[in-house]
């Protein structure tokens, strides 16, 4: 059986989570690989959450917020816009491939877009293979 990546998705309550709900009410099907965690605003997403998800065995992490300028809290998503690029650079230094962490803007009306993003990310991660984190840490535990 082919490898099925597990993706943890952090979605802001007002745009992206509502968008994901819309995908549901519109019955737009997408890959079952994503596990959504709702936060009030993408600005609540501490980079620690992303790393924690990877450390706990996620193959990918998807971060979604309102489109720039449309934040329910007027500028929360700008914080996310500032945090993610440096986080991705740091994760690259820690050996995490770029595709594993993804930032997308999804509005409440973009159910289709959310579905497409999940499908696309799932496909890319299938090709990329499982996250190295678990294996490596397990390996360390085995033999120092």
């Amino acid at each position, binding site marked *: 059986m082919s490898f099925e990546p597990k993706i943890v998705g952090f979605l802001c309550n007002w745009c992206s989570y509502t968008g994901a709900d819309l995908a549901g009410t519109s019955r737009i099907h997408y890959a079952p690989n994503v596990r959504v965690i709702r936060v009030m605003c993408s600005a609540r997403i501490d980079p620690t959450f992303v790393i924690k998800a990877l450390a706990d065995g996620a193959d990918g992490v998807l971060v979604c917020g309102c489109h720039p300028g449309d934040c329910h809290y007027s500028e929360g998503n700008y914080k996310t816009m500032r945090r993610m690029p*440096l986080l991705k650079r740091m994760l690259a230094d820690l050996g995490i491939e770029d595709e594993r962490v993804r930032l997308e803007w999804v509005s409440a009306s973009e159910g289709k877009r959310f579905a497409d993003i999940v499908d696309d990310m799932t496909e890319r991660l299938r090709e990329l293979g499982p996250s190295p984190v678990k294996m490596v840490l397990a390996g360390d535990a085995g033999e120092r």
Partner: protein
Amino acid sequence: MASDKLQIALYWGSACGGCDVAVLDTDAFILDVAAAADIRLWPIAVDGKYADIEAMEDGELDLAIYNGAVRNSENERIAKLLRAKSKLLVAFGSCAHLGGIPGLANLTSRDEILSTAYLHNPSLEKGSKTLPLPESGVNGTTLTIPSFYKRVYKLDDVVPVDYYVPGCPPAFDQVQAVLEAVVGGDLPAVGSVVGASDRALCDDCARVKSEKRIKHFYRPWQIMIDPDACLLEQGILCAGPVTRSGCGSRCPSSGIPCRGCYGPLDGVVDQGAKLLSAVTSVIDSTDPEEIDRIIDGLPDFAGFAYRFSMPSSLLQRSVGQ
């Protein structure tokens, strides 16, 4: 030999020796210690043998102070030995506490380290192929050396630790405080960090803080540093906000940004990630390109953010193959 004196041992694992110097830094006080205690093991200062420790009853030692990280089998063996023989085991200094500077080696791999050091080091004689092996036969006899681990561990990765004394090195007054505490027997809850504050360095930092908006990051030598203003507000990356205070804010007060040697505060699970979150949040731009330009001013961020805490971070090491 029986004695009513305090039985203590000090040991250095994968360390630079700075922590031992810090102990010596306690100056005349160390003589009081010597007077009050039998120092059974202290490789850097007194002549004690592992065998003597191995010969001890379990718990015969009152206090073992371990500095340095765990990089090889010997480090681990002695850590286990001291744990068994000592009532209290203290992780002393950043390396034992969090992995410290040696922990930065986790950003690369054992093979790379060995090949750099033993195969591609410019100071090697041409064509040298000698790699350190745990066992090697030299004219008939077998030599063994400790095995070099795949990565660096902090002390409590290999043995349970009673107390942590942070710092690279710990401030001498705190060394004193810890020793006095042990002598006096008034100890906090097991597992706690002693000789440090529960607030971030900024609490003790004398520099004036105001609202933060960062348009450009500078290395300290790039600008004339305002002696009174918060370094971060001047665009100098400072780990103060994510670092326990207790050092007396020595670096910032001398114009050098905090490097975070005292480690994260309770509740912060990943010092590097937290620093990243805090610092990027106050970048003063809403334009992706500009943001990219601004963070270009933070080269090797992982190296800075995890300077002392790589092995204690969530990922513990680089997972790149």
